[in-house]
């Protein structure tokens, strides 16, 4: 069946575009499958693949070996760290834009020292170093609020680290708005906070959103490193399963698929948001 082309309009009809997209996806899927199965066949000469026993452990991937970890814990860690990291990042960005040089310098020091060390080193530093110095023990008592120690330090490390990247995004976004905007808002009688709220931030938002969602995806990926402080999240679960049954390749492939299941939808969402927020997008859509 060949779809009809309406030459009167600039864009080909919807059916034709859908047809082309489906065809494209099919061709790529076939090619990827072909390449992978070629590699698979080659590898299976030396390594016996056993997918069935590996796939029977999917449940353990979902909520961990003890039922308190796995995929759900990764989601929990990333969610809490996203909120904390964004708030902290905004605070640091405001400190870096403060009129007081001491505050600016402190912000600069914070951002540059965290951005320039690997996250792994920072976790090790926080959990084995700082935690050792501050409070020893399996749980942290935060002014009467008892939190599991590894979870507390893991989420804290992730939030502090990502805040240094997020703060740069906020700062760049706010600085991308021309200073005359602030000046004219002030001259219209708005105070500093009104000008921020009604003039600067709505415009900065458009610049901030694409890199911010990118950074939040990076945060989900960084959370994998929390396995080194034996926080039983997704990656540690895969590692533990791999040491129980020697199905390493299968388990790590499933692990990769689980991460893609979190990050790819986020990436798609950020793509859609970006398209929607683009200048002039509203006219294009209608």
């Amino acid at each position, binding site marked *: 069946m060949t779809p009809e082309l309406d030459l009167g309009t600039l864009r080909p009809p919807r059916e034709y575009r859908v047809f082309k997209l489906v065809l494209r996806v099919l061709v*790529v899927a076939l090619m990827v499958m072909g390449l992978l199965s070629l590699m698979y066949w080659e590898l299976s000469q030396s390594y016996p693949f056993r997918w069935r026993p590996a796939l029977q452990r999917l449940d353990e991937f979902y909520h961990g070996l003890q039922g308190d970890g796995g995929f759900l814990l990764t989601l929990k860690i990333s969610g809490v760290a996203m909120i904390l990291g964004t708030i902290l990042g905004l605070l640091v960005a405001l400190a870096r834009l403060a009129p007081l040089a*001491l505050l600016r310098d402190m912000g600069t020091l914070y951002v540059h020292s965290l951005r320039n060390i690997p996250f792994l080193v920072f976790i090790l*530093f926080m959990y*084995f*170093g700082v935690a*050792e110095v501050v409070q020893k023990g399996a749980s942290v008592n935060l002014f009467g609020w008892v939190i599991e120690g590894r979870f507390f330090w893991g989420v804290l490390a992730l939030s502090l680290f990502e805040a240094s990247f997020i703060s740069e995004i906020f700062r760049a976004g706010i600085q991308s708005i021309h200073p005359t905007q602030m000046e004219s808002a002030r001259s219209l009688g708005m105070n500093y906070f009104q000008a921020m709220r009604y003039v600067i931030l709505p415009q900065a938002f458009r610049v901030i959103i694409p890199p911010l969602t990118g950074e939040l995806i990076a945060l989900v990926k960084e959370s994998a490193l929390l396995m*080194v402080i034996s926080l039983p999240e997704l990656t540690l679960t895969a590692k533990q399963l791999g040491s129980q049954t020697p199905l*390493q390749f299968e388990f*790590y492939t499933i692990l990769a698929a689980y991460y*893609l299941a979190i990050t790819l939808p986020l990436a798609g969402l950020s793509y859609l948001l970006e398209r929607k927020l683009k200048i002039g997008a509203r006219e294009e859509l209608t």
Partner: protein
Amino acid sequence: MFWRLVNRASIPPWQRAGRSALWLGLRFILAGAVLFGAIALIFRGLGSTYTFHWSEALRFLPRFNEGLWVTLELSVLGALLAILLGIVVALARLSPWGPVRDLAGVYVHTFRNLPFLVVALLFFFGLGQAIRLRPFELLGQIFMPQFIWGVLALGVYEASYLGETFRAGIQSIHKEQVEAARSLGMHYFQVMRYVVLPQAFRVILPPMTSTLIALVKESSLLYLIQVPELTNAARQLAIPTRRPYVFEFYTILAGYYLAIVVPLSLLSQWLEGRLEASRALREAAHHDA
């Protein structure tokens, strides 16, 4: 009016007017002291009773230096592989043939959305089981399988980022430039060599250096597949029961990474500023003519 055209960014930050190194150093020492004091107060408030052993910890610096060399080797080899693969991926993403573009797209989006740790584990424990590499000697140095898998994982992972950087850089050059060059009688490779790439390079350089810096930092994860690099050295030294000064070891470790990465990012800032300045000069010359 030459002096006006010299971009402020082209001068290294420590030489800019009004910012003598001494004054800048003093400012940052003050800021550091205030920040450090605040953190120490928080520690005390949380009930800390820790004694520091800096001199004992510093005696282990030679162990860190051994790890440093492996980290540098990993980073350099990984970066070379990533750049080569990245160019291939970028050209594939710009290929006139649809399926090749899409295939490269699948590669890029898969690796960009995976944690590097997962890729490293998949390479070493997954593929390493199926493809058994043997240690080999090259130029008087023995390369272990975990080192080779580490370099491969770094290269393949970062190539997915570099590929996008290269593609964006090439696409940032207006199509008219290519068409004009073609109409002057240049063929495809001449156009790339003399028109597109010199201009694209300026766009590519800043994100490329930051990806390469990220690569140095990612290399720390390779301690989990037993590559004897910097982080591994610290992990082996910091055993609380035998040497109860873990805080000091991890601080030294962070210091080592800062010592590699901060010069790299200053270098990239400086290069960026130079490229920017040369562009400004050329444009000014163009306007005068």
